[in-house]
Each structure stands twice: as structure tokens, then as C-alpha cells.
């Protein structure tokens, strides 16, 4: 393993995760105001639809696929044992990958051509979009150029990732991968690294709790039980002004 492999496959992943965890915890707790999707739909909504929907749906499906291969590699390998099933899985992955690529490209085009959207664009937005474009581009390149990634990811890269989790990094298999795969790994951790500093933070505040929440919300500044206890020093009941 050369210095690049050591850095991108071992050192940087740990650094990125550390920065992500500490940075995101700080930002969520102390700078909650900055945690937002920063939607620009209000300024431009029509062309946004054709880019933002394929991008989000595409990337969610693809991310979920990666997660599956990481969590249940055996199940993926078993599924891929039948060629037809392998083709279906890879085909779907490629379709959603392409949707993501088209989406991010469309989003960038919109951001740079629409005056209003440009007015709310920050340097970090541009950096994030460039990294995302490269990352998705590498992903599609791998899917096309280095076939059956779902199988070799599950068999070769999942153990590598778990070795990182177990704090005994074993990156030999990953280091033997083609350069574009290594760049894809580096890009993934770079995106994680960027979360605390960019709008990407909105991914981690996805409003799933909305499903279980009652519709109406009332918040009391007073403790009503304490307020109505006449023995309490702060009671407002039974005391005339």
C-alpha cells in the first residue's frame, strides 16, 4: 500500500467520520438555525422539479443498495447467484445511478444559469455539487466499466468497511481495486466530511418522526401541574392579583 492508499482508505475515513460526528453534533445542538435544506424552490420551481426529483429518488435508492451490501453481504451474494437476478439488480442500480447523475447535472445547470438561484449560491454549495457530480460520475463509471459491483462490493469491500468499524483496518483488498473505485471510496468519505459544513446536513434531519407525531402541537412554558398546586410557591391559582 502506498501513501495514497493509506491516506484515502484508512486515515481519511477515520478523520471524516470523526469530523462528521463531532461537527454535526455541534451544529445540531448549537447552531440549529443553520441546519436546513436551503430549498430554492421558492425562487425557481419549474425546472427544479425535473432535476431535484430524479436526483433525490436516485441517490436514496443507490445509497440504500450500498447500505444493503454493507449490512447483509451474504444475502446480496445469494441473490446474485442466479444470473437473471444479478442482471435485474445491476440494471436497476444503473438506472437509478443514471437518474442521480442526470439530476445532479440538471441541478448544477439550473444553479449556474438561473440568476435568482445564483444569488443564493454559496461557495460551499458549488464545492458540494462538484464533489457530488464527481462521486456520482465515478459510481456510474464503475457500474458500467467494472461490472457486477454488487457482488464484488459484497465480497471484497464489505469486509474492508467492517474492518474499519472494528478499528483493525485491513485495506489490502480495497487497495487492489482500480483507481476509480478508490476515488469513489475517497469521495464517499469526503461527502461525509462535508456534512457539518454544508447543506448536506439536511439529510440527517429527515422528518421521519412526522409519521408518528399528532398533527397539532402545543408547548407550555409553564409547568401546569406545578402552577395549579396551591402549595407551590409559583402557584397562580387561588391568589388574587
Amino acid at each position, binding site marked *: 500500500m502506498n501513501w495514497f492508499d493509506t491516506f484515502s482508505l484508512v486515515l481519511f475515513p477515520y478523520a471524516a467520520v470523526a469530523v462528521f460526528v463531532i461537527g454535526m453534533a455541534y*451544529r445540531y445542538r448549537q447552531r*440549529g*438555525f*443553520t*441546519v*436546513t*435544506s*436551503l*430549498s*430554492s*424552490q*421558492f*425562487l*425557481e*420551481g419549474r425546472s*427544479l*422539479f425535473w432535476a*431535484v*426529483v430524479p*436526483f433525490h*429518488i436516485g441517490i436514496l435508492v443507490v445509497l440504500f443498495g450500498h447500505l444493503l451490501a454493507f449490512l447483509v453481504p451474504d444475502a446480496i451474494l445469494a441473490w446474485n447467484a442466479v444470473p437473471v437476478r444479478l442482471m435485474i439488480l445491476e440494471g436497476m442500480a444503473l438506472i437509478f445511478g443514471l437518474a442521480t447523475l442526470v439530476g445532479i447535472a440538471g441541478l448544477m445547470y439550473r444553479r449556474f444559469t438561473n*440568476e*435568482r438561484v*445564483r*444569488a*443564493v449560491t*454559496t461557495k460551499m454549495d458549488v464545492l458540494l455539487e462538484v464533489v457530488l457530480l464527481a462521486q456520482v460520475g465515478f459510481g456510474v463509471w464503475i457500474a458500467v466499466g467494472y461490472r457486477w459491483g454488487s457482488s464484488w462490493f459484497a465480497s471484497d469491500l464489505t469486509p474492508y468497511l467492517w474492518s474499519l468499524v472494528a478499528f483493525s483496518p485491513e485495506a489490502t483488498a480495497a487497495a487492489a481495486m482500480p483507481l476509480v473505485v478508490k476515488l469513489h471510496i475517497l469521495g464517499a468519505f469526503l461527502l461525509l466530511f462535508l456534512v*457539518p*459544513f454544508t*447543506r448536506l*446536513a*439536511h439529510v440527517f*434531519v429527515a*422528518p421521519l*418522526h*412526522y*409519521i408518528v*407525531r399528532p*398533527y*397539532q*402541537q*402545543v*408547548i*407550555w*412554558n*409553564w*409547568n*401546569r*401541574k*406545578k*402552577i*395549579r398546586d396551591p402549595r407551590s*410557591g*409559583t402557584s*397562580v*391559582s*387561588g*391568589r*388574587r*392579583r
Partner: protein
Amino acid sequence: MDVRSQISMVFHLDKCIGCHTCSVACKNIWTDRKGAEYMWWNNVETKPGTGYPGKWENQDIYKGGWEEDGNGGIRLKGAGKPKSLSNIFHNPHMPSIDDYYEPFTYKYLDLIEAEAGDIQPTARPVSMITGEPMDIQMGPNWDDDLSGTPDYARKDPNLEDLSEAEQEAMFQLERMAFFYLPRICNHCLNAACVASCPSGAIYKRGEDGVVLINQDVCRGWRMCVTACPYKKSYYNWDTGKSEKCILCYPRLESGYAPACMHSCVGRIRYLGVILYDADRIEEAASADESELVERQLDMLLDPFDPEVIAAAKENGVADSTIESAQNSPTYKFVKEWDLALPLHPEFRTLPMLFYVPPLLPVMASVADANDNAQREKIHDIGKKWPDEWVYDTSIDQLFGTIDDARFPLEYMASLFSAGDVEAVKSRLEKLMAIRLHRRRETVGDVDSATVDKALKKAGLTGQRANAIYYLTSLAKFDDRFVIPPAHREQAIEMLDEDVGATKGETGFGFKRGTNKRGA
């Protein structure tokens, strides 16, 4: 019975002169910031007109508010759990900034810095978003006083229920009338914005019912903008957060009236506590459309009723708040006197801002009979107008005009009572009876029997008419705004920290700086 207290508002539309002082007071305090330039938490619309944002009342376009779900319940029209989550990447019903207007300023410096030349320098309008020169297409108040214009007044969504002939009659030049509709957040009991917020950032304050957006929790999912049928939740395009009227709660907590109300030139605004039964919110909001107003008024409780007082105390409502509710001008207007109505109750959010419907545009019909006696009384300047143009304010015509008013009551009913003409009419008759009564008291040229008949028909006594007259016309600041003490001292005492230390340190410590647009 779950008794809660709510700060409610009443706007007396006959008194509104459309000066926009309220809007400017609000703007100067709260929305004079980047990303908020286009927001008018308080705005004043000319009716008939399309309003701000354009045609906001048309929920076929904006999909705001609640609708019946067919099973006796209600659901959000354009948001809610399934819709909000599946449309979270792109909200198909979200208004864009062009529905409001692109905020602009002028390049004033060009007037000073232009080089000497033959042509006068001009200050070009520039967009406050891009900074580029722009053609102004819309403003926050573009149709001000433009009643009758084809582009605005005739596109008023409330005209839908009127027949062609009625609409034509409304817009005949010599019969034309309009009135002003000032709007702020209604601080609803069944708020659609609260229900639609995926992050749970929007909430109702238990103590006083003010609806607020927690800026640290809002993630910019934009569903409240769609869900609020009054379009009173605004998306700040710079910070990526939604904002809305906060009823000047820092002022309220210090005993001051909200800025829009404090500055109101016509003194049309009233603010006070109303106690209500929170157990009946769902039932009232799901009522049949014909019963919506009635059910909502039923929820509001009599603050003198010993049972209500006991239940309120049990529920932690402060004695001082109950006392405020007993002196509340809004309770009088809304419940005791039955004079005020909510705006568009058919949106089913149970708004707690009520309007006394305007009598003037209804009453001021064009005289075409019996104006000889009237002409005698008219000042010389009035005689310069052709006779048939003179407003007939003679007393025997006053009541007649409500039925064949130049401003169809259906229009008012579409605004204030979900189409129930009787609800509007009974309130206008009261206003008319009070006028007659006061004319008898002050001018004395009115037949007493007629006035008594009018009062009786409106269900008023002379005493009550005088009380309404007082609160309408003579009320002092403390009569119009009965603000309950916020009891912040108790809120502080409940903190786990040492009260003395909290007191000593408030206002000191590390300053975090002004919140900026997300990283």
C-alpha cells in the same frame, strides 16, 4: 372540558381607512431583513380584489387549509403526512416568489453620482434578490384602491358564488364600492401550518395560543407555506427557514399591544383573551360547512361561568388571565354581542382573528327614491353632485338597503361566514340599529318608534347599543387592548437553575452573534 386561553383579535372593518400604517409598523420591526423583504406579516387588501399573494383565497390553486375527508373527519388539502413526505423534494403546490412579488429597490445613488449631461439621471429599479435591473411587475399592494378593474377586482375568488348580473351590478361605475381587509396571522386553534410541519418546528403556545415557528428546528421543508390557507407563513429565501407573524409576543409579554395594533390610525383593532374548550377543536373543525361559524363560537366559553372558571384554574390558567378574559373586548365583540365573524371559516383552521363586517359599502346604496327630505339636509357641496348619485342615508332607507344593497351580501358571506348570508345580515342589522339609536340620542331627528323597532329586530337594548358604541368609537387604549400578564417571573422560577443567578446573568454571557444563512 379542557379550558385554555387564547389571545384573540377583532378588526372592525368599518373603521379601517386603508392607510397601511399597520403594515409599515410591522415591516419596520420584523421583516426589514434580507430574504424577508417580500414578506408582509401584516398586509391590507382592497376588496373586491385579488390580494397578496394573488388570489390567495382560491384553494384550487394554492391547496391550503383543511378539507372534509369523506368519513366525517378532515384532512389537510395540500399537505399532511402522506403528501408532505412524498412531496418533500419538490412541493407541487408551493407558491413561488412571483405569486407575491419580486422585492425591489431603486439605484438612488445614480441620481447623485451620475456624470453631468443633457439628460436627467434616473434611479432604475433593481431586484433585491439578484441586484440586477428589473421591470417591476407586482408589488405587495398592487391593486390598492383598484376596485372594479378587470385585472384585479373582477378576479376576486369570492365573486364565484355571485350571479353574472350581481357581479355586473357591483362594478357599475356609479355603484362601485370597496373596503379594506387588513390581515395578519389568525393564530388558529386548528392551525394547518402546525399540522403540516414535518419537522415539528411550528407550535402553539399553551399559555396564550400564539402560533410560532422555532427557527432552530425549521428545516425548510416548506409545507406550512402551502398549508396555511391565508398564506401567512412565508419562506425566507435567504435563511432557508419559514417565518410568520409572532403577534409581537415580546411586546405582549411586556404588556404592550402588537405593533400593528398599537399604530393603527383608525383604532380598528382589539385584542384580548378568550377562553375556549380545547376538547371541542376537532368537532368544531369537522362540522358541516353551514355550521362551522356556529360551532366555532360555541367553543368559546363564558369567563363569568363558575364552572368555566373552576375548569380553567384546574388547567393552570392564571387568575390574572381569567380576569383579562372577563374584561376582554374581543369576547364582547365575538360572543356577547355576536358582531364579529372569522375570515373564511370554510378553511376549517378555526381562526382566532375576527372581523366586524363593514356596513358602509353595503349601506351606501345610490338613492333613487324619496330623497327630497334628504336633499334639504345636504350641505351645498353635496348638491353639486347629480341627485341620483347622492348616497341615501335617510333613516327609513337604512334598513331597506341591507337587502338590496349595492354590495351583495353573498359577497360578504363568502368572506366571513362560508356563504351563510343570514349570519352576515344579522350582524349588519345590529350595526345599523346602533347607528339609528345613536342618531336618536345625538341628532334626534329620528322617529323613536322606528329606532325601537330596529333595536328590537337586531336583538339589542339601548344600553347594549351604547356599550357597543362606546367600544367601537370612544374606547381608550386600555379598553381596546386587554393584555394578560405573561407571568414570566413564574416561568423563570420553574427553571432548574438558581433564580437569582438567572436574573443576574440575563443579557450577559457569550454573545452568539446574529444568525446567518446556513453554512
